[in-house]
């Protein structure tokens, strides 16, 4: 049975806090790019950019701040799973050279997706710095990767499954955990 771990309000609060932390660490919204990793990371990046636009008067509009970074072609498990269909990569008009890029994903787990994202990013340009924001950090890292901004730390067992559901895709905002009582 799925157990709810984050509610709509929890998610919103987490993203608001992340947005503040990003602004704080970047000392404002200049030279900043928020790149979501498909599928749900793109939605989260967009929400963060919107939040930043609300709280920071000088921030660029969300469309110029947020984009997407597809990592399919850089994954290390392409030969091991079913063929994945890639999603488009869309960079904000300013590109990423010399910018601070904040990668956004829904769940941080093994770290392999982020490893792929760093490679993908390197082929697109040379950012000044790369940061990582995730809604949920569930542990079990297989790579030396850590998140700079975390919505919620959620220690979990490997056999458990974390589901992030978002309005724009799933029609609701919720994070649930499954398989814990199996």
């Amino acid at each position: 049975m799925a157990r709810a771990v984050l509610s709509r309000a929890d998610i919103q609060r987490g993203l608001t806090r992340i947005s503040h932390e990003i602004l704080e660490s970047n000392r404002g919204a200049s030279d900043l790019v928020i790149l979501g990793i498909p599928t749900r990371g793109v939605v989260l990046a967009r929400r963060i950019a919107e939040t930043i636009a609300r709280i920071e008067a000088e921030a660029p509009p969300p469309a110029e701040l947020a984009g997407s970074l597809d990592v399919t072609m850089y994954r290390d498990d392409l030969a091991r799973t079913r063929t994945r269909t890639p999603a488009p990569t869309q960079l904000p008009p300013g590109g990423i050279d010399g910018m601070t890029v904040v990668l956004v994903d829904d769940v941080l787990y093994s770290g392999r997706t982020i490893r792929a994202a760093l490679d993908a990013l390197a082929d697109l340009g040379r950012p000044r710095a790369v940061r990582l924001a995730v809604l949920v950090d569930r542990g079990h890292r297989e790579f030396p990767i850590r998140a700079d901004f975390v919505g919620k730390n959620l220690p979990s067992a490997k056999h458990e499954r974390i589901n992030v559901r978002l309005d724009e895709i799933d029609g609701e905002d919720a994070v649930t955990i499954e398989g814990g009582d199996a």
Partner: protein
Amino acid sequence: MRHLLATRDLSRDEAIELLDIAEDMAAVQEREVKKLPTLRGKTVVNLFFEDSTRTRISFEAAAKRLSADVINFSAKGSSVSKGESLKDTAQTLQAMGADGVVVRHPSSGAPLVLATSGWIDAGVVNAGDGTHEHPTQALLDAFTMRRRLHGAASRGRDLDGVRIVIVGDILHSRVARSNVWLLDTLGADVTLVAPPTLLPVDPSGWPARIGYDLDAALAPAPDVVMMLRVQAERMHAAFFPNSREYSRTWGLDDARFDRLPPTTMVMHPGPMNRGLEIAARAADSPQSTVREQVANGVSVRMAALYLLLSGERGDA
């Protein structure tokens, strides 16, 4: 996708998925770093039993931009009898650990035989077989049309209602066959125009209108006119009297080109016989997609190789 042998058996969803992935690949072609690590460690063999430098370098570029190792194997003019060499060559490639084989062969059906024989485990891409199919050419043609029509909003779209006239040696053209099946699958409306000698004897099963009159076919201002190459050897086998009559009756000359609206795309799979099936002015006009077709060929072939060579082997 296990193999890409024909457009005949591609579903609409499969075709659109491939075209959409080709859009992503095209985006990569516009960056400074044009290479993806996707097929690192994979080996792609270009197995060409027939000369075709353009097709081979297009596949070679596609494979290299996906970081695959590429081996070019030209089996033309081999001293072994034709039949033995296909099997023997396949077994050689198997021993070399080829993951993908791109095969061009003068015999219709040879890629299917290679894929179903059990001689190799590799995924097989048909790069043109006899007078049968040339699926990646049709896919790049469809990709080119879709991009011209829909631009950045191409993803997910088909070619519903697009009116296409294909002109020339339909009988011997694998490009025409692959295009007819694919364009029909994508919802386009296809008309074939040729001298009766260069049409199949019974095209009743083809999802296309058939005509002999090019002017009549061009009168309603189609969205696309695709001119096929006339092979020199046809002229000596009584398919038509001579090149002058051919070009006058079935060529896209200046007068016919001038009657087309500027929105009509002019396509040609290349290499062109300027002055025979297509006049230089039409070939070099902004309406001509000939150069885009070449660039798009690499993107479409990257998408095909990605679909064939990623994922677990044996994936449907």
